[in-house]
């Protein structure tokens, strides 16, 4: 495999005097892989994609896509890539078909090939029956599918998908994840950003973990989880109203607990042997006022990696 994306020390500062939103990240994406950038909101994922797709001028560094510099040959780069933005970027007053025709023409397509490709994409996103309806009559999930369809219309070699499942129902989310896998099976390279650990875990060949504008880890999931060692995670689900922060502080004092963090009525404790530590952790949590609903024992995953690297949960 050859690298379709080569990023070297890419940096972005929005205004003079601001902190860097992206602090000199470097990575490569191989042709045909699904590469995820995983990190919390504000980590710099969207800024990185915006620079690679030519929307933002980098403050420093360089990147090449398909061997073309994003700085010197932006239009050539744009003909290689497809972009699925985080927000739904469609025209409400137009139908799905009209939207696809419009965006196809913006990619230089025309005539019968464009019509045929629009039909194909409508089939692919499962909206052929409603192709003539205006977008404003669609549900959020249907709009998301059209939003993705626009990015695939011109058969790009590389598609950027920026948090494509934000704010949709589980069924639509499932459809989108399946679609991404199918596109990859057809040979499309995917750069996927998300703050959902499960999505990165399900889809990715390799994952780059971003936090505060830095790429803090990069590798396959196995490589990343090995960073944590053989550690396991104990996830305590608390009742609403319990102070997860207070419980996490208490749990962190238990001998043998390597790290503990709180998020969304949950406390995650990293331990060497979950079975042996379970009773002590539950006892200390209860003493701290926790009313525990359930406890999960988790093998090392991307979330524990993030916790291990930053001391914070992914969704903090």
């Amino acid at each position: 495999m050859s690298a379709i994306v080569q990023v070297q020390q890419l940096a972005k500062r929005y205004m003079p005097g601001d902190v860097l939103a992206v602090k000199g990240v470097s990575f490569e994406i191989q042709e045909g892989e699904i590469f995820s950038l995983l990190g919390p909101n504000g980590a710099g994922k969207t800024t990185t994609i915006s620079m690679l797709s030519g929307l933002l001028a980098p403050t420093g560094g360089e990147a090449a896509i398909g061997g073309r510099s994003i700085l010197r040959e932006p239009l050539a780069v744009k003909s290689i890539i497809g972009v699925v933005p985080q927000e739904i970027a469609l025209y409400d007053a137009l139908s799905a078909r009209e939207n696809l025709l419009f965006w196809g023409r913006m990619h230089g397509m025309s005539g019968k090939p464009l019509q045929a490709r629009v039909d194909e994409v409508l089939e692919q996103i499962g909206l052929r029956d409603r192709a003539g309806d205006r977008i404003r009559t669609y549900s959020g999930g249907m709009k998301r599918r059209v939003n993705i369809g626009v990015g695939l219309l011109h058969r790009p070699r590389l598609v950027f998908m920026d948090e494509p499942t934000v704010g949709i129902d589980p069924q639509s989310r499932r459809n989108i994840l399946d679609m991404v896998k199918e596109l990859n099976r057809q040979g499309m390279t995917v750069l996927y950003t998300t703050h959902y650990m499960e999505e990165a875990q399900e889809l990715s060949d390799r994952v780059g973990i971003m936090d505060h504008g830095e790429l803090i880890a990069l590798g396959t999931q196995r490589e990343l989880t090995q960073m944590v060692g053989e550690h396991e995670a104990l996830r305590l689900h608390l009742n609403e109203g319990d102070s997860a922060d207070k419980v996490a502080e208490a749990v962190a004092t238990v001998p043998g607990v390597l790290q503990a963090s709180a998020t969304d009525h949950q406390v995650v404790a990293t331990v060497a042997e979950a079975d042996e530590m379970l009773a002590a952790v539950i006892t200390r949590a209860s003493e701290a006022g926790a009313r525990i609903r359930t406890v999960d024992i988790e093998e090392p995953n991307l979330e524990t990696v993030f916790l291990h690297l930053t001391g914070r949960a992914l969704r903090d």
Partner: protein
Amino acid sequence: MRKILNIAWKDLISAFREPGVVIMMLVTPFALTLVMGFAFGAFGGGNAGPAGIPMTIVNHDAGEFGQRLVRMLEADGLADLLVVTVLSDDAAARAAVDADQSAAAVIVPADFSEAVVPAGLSQGDTSGLQGAQPVTIELYANPTRPVSAGVVRTVAERFIDVASAQRSAGLVVVGQIVGNRLADPQAMAQQGAAIGHRVGDQVASTSLVRVVGESDAAGQSNFDWLGYMAPSMAILFLMFTVSAGGRTILLERDLGTLPRMLTTPTGAAQVLGGKVLGTYLTGLAQMIILFVASTLLLGVHWGAPAPVAALLLSLVAAGTGWGMLIAAYSKTTGQANAVGTALSLTFGALAGNFVVRDLLPDVLKKASLITPNAWGLDGFKALAAGGTLADVALPIAALWGMAAITFALAVVAFRRQAAQ
């Protein structure tokens, strides 16, 4: 060029699919044209203008001239213009005006005829003539009906003008006869009455409708309100359309479609070109539809098609330039909306979209030349009066110049934003 057309066509379709936009672009200006037409009697047949003006008259003069004035106002020739109520009490007449039941009250003093032909002359003594009082009639006008009151005033003044001229002549003749002892003063009193009759006849026989036609007020009565209001309202609402068109650049930025366009192999200049052309085509379509609708449905005469088309093209270009300028210097769609609305209304008020442009003070007429509205109105007025392309060469040149300047300023601002 295909991508520019693609963006422009998308904007055109999108605009005409929004019911709110269609109401603003087409329904409102057409409806306002109709309302203005009705308000000023454009559908009353033949001669559009004020009609059926209620007025009151109080005649305290027992002499001939007061009677003549009443008869003149009640004459058939003025029946369409004036609805006259004769009262005997000044206070009642003024009250009718105050109650807005009357546009004006005309109060004729008791000595009106005496002032025209004085009595009390004696043989060889003409001193009574020197002491003759000026002819005065009180006009109590309703300030809420300035046009109607102006018509009554014009009619009354015309009567006085004629009466004064006859009075002067009568005084000279009577004075000469009595002063030179050529006739007995008692006999001249009778002669004076006879002169009064003749003067009255002459006044009454004067065609007051024709006289009114020569005055400023009557100039408006022949005014083609629909012919003025159709282009006027179209221009006013064109400015709303083009400022909304410019605003779509900011709206697309907020919705993410503008950044998405820039991720396709499309240059920023092409995107801007598409947005400008889209706004231009939308404005042009609006003007053409209003032109056709007002011509076919209301019978408005805009002028010869070729110069009208040339003026429309340049007017929409200048409007589009302003729309782009607003978008370029606004930070948010809300700001662009507020500025666009304020500018459209200000331009309309300055240029005379709400009133007749010719009635504006000179200083406003000159100041309004920074607006496309003023040049457009001047141009359409010339064309409606039978003007040719040569007659609108100046407005057309001014409008294209305005388009070039505003567009250049907008591009400078857009480039500055892109660099940031």
